């Protein structure tokens, strides 16, 4: 009798674990600072999926630096979808055959459901009176940015500074001069976005931090509102947040439909609204307008306008021996 009970219990546990295992789950491999956004989005998606299909689904998240994540997926991390903040990271996965070669055409808007832009955070009350890009190169201003060599945040800041000169009708030579002046005002190159925020707010170094618009919310949350003012420059860059289905994993797991539904949900009104709440710019114009107090309408340019593409910019500016290296090796 005791033996029977034990066997029955074992069978029950086995069955239960089997049911738990049978529930579809997706793994979203994403960049470092999107943790809170996807936490909210996943909750909404699970409810939405249940309503639309009647099936339960679970979404797991993995967050780290964007290109470190891309390398992990390329090396075999079983992501169903990748949601990055730099196009080159998804392109790298496409070059490895992990995502479809035409991934950018699989979803609307270049497969980027959301964007962000670079803006300035200054100390409360803006004591140095920083309003626009030109103020960053004034003598005595200390600028905190991420090292473009180690973080996508830094690459976007660099390209935004360069593009700001071009957008005002300047030449590439003038842009190069501007950028070189700007980096002379940089006392510490941060390693990543969060590191830069720490240097600016915990170490109290610098007068202005150039970072993603989406960082403002987390800064207010972590350091208390009122520590910094967000300054929107007159012109800035569109930083696309590309998404893609990882074909290698969904073919193996048979989760292609769910993965697509998940990414489609990012484009839905609900998904776009959640993004806007996290200070990430939605593609949907109406929702963008609704949140224009935080996501201020400023003149924006895309990477493609002045740099051809992000991978082109990577080659010219950030790879070894590129334009960025010249800033630090010239005259030494």
């Amino acid at each position: 009798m005791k033996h029977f009970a034990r066997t029955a219990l074992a069978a029950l546990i086995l069955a239960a674990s089997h049911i738990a295992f049978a529930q579809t789950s997706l793994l979203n491999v994403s960049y470092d600072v999107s943790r809170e956004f996807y936490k909210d989005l996943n909750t909404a998606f699970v409810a939405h999926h249940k309503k639309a299909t009647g099936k339960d689904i679970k979404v797991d998240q993995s967050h780290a630096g964007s290109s470190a994540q891309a390398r992990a997926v390329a090396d075999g991390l079983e992501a169903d979808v990748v949601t990055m903040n730099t196009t080159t990271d998804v392109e790298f996965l496409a070059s490895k055959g992990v995502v479809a070669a035409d991934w950018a055409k699989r979803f609307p808007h270049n497969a980027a459901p959301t964007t962000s832009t670079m803006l300035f955070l200054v100390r409360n009350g803006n004591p140095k009176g920083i309003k626009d890009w030109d103020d960053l190169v004034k003598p005595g201003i200390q600028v905190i940015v991420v090292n473009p060599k180690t973080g996508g945040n830094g690459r976007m800041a660099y390209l935004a500074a360069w593009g700001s000169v071009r957008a005002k009708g300047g030449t590439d030579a003038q842009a190069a001069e501007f950028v070189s002046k700007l980096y002379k005002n940089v006392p510490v190159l941060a390693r990543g976005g969060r590191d830069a925020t720490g240097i600016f707010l915990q170490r109290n170094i610098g007068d202005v931090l150039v970072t993603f618009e989406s960082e403002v919310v987390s800064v207010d949350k972590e350091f208390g509102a009122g520590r910094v003012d967000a300054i929107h420059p007159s012109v800035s860059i569109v930083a696309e947040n590309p998404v893609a289905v990882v074909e290698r994993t969904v073919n193996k797991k048979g989760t292609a439909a769910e993965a697509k539904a998940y990414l489609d949900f990012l484009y839905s009104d609900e998904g776009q609204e959640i993004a806007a709440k996290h200070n990430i710019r939605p593609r949907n114009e109406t929702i963008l307008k609704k949140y224009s107090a935080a996501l201020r309408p400023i003149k924006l340019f895309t990477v493609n306008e002045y740099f051809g593409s992000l991978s082109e910019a990577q080659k010219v500016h950030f790879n070894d021996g590129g334009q960025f290296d010249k800033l630090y090796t010239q005259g030494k």
Partner: protein
Amino acid sequence: MSASATYPLPGQGGGALGPGGEQGPPPVRRAAKRVLPGFNITLGFTLFYLCLIVLIPLSALLLKTFTLTWPQFWEAVTAPRVLASYRLTFGASLTAALVNVVFGLLVAWVLVRYTFPGKKIVDALVDLPFALPTAVAGISLTALLAGNGWIGQYLEPLGIQLAFNPNGVVIALIFIGLPFVVRTVQPVLEDAEKELEEAAMCLGATRWQTFVRVIFPAIAPALLTGFAMAFARAIGEYGSVIFIAGNMPMISEITPLIIISKLEQYDYAGATAVATVMLGISFVLLLVINALQTWQRNRSGG
């Protein structure tokens, strides 16, 4: 005689089987008997284990480097930024290891030779840099030494900056390297015979002579080992340094950061090329230190 021919004693070899009294060919010696059994199997396992844990990953590193042509390799490892990072990494590691030798010896000395209340706690404190996640070490050191930190705020008006420049790198490396020197010197110092020192004293040696002639030769090999370990550890250190270095190209970028930044641009081959160079330099340095040690031991032992 005949008895010995019929029943050769173990270890005597086959040569003894020859007719008694005759001087046969010299006995063929079997491989020397070892006191401990299982030499072959343990050696085999050691080699296998070292291959699995050390050599296979390292050969993967080398193989990846071979995807580069010579000019590409040379360009990757001699770019000005990379050269500056070697200077910083090896220079700062050397400085930190030297500082650790001096103060590590002092700490070990105090811990072995004196008794004082709270000694156990001090002893345990030494190991903390081992146990602490290095990122935590980096962040706390930065918090202390930055311009607005507890210590930094008093130093900055004096024009002393310890964070976000190469000074910070050295400080972080001193922190993580300390236990290596203390823990290698400590047991040797404990085993050192007090009688020798007393004898030296009795024979009229000054304190300084006793230290230089008697104590130092005994602990020098351990000190060198500690130095080598602290140095090697410092070369590979990443976690604590990047928080305090400031990571300015040409000034405060350590070589591991160069490797990471190459990976950021998906330049696997370039990253492994730099890693290979680092590995080569470290290996040569450690070999030199080992040779020094042997030389030292022979000199003092002879």
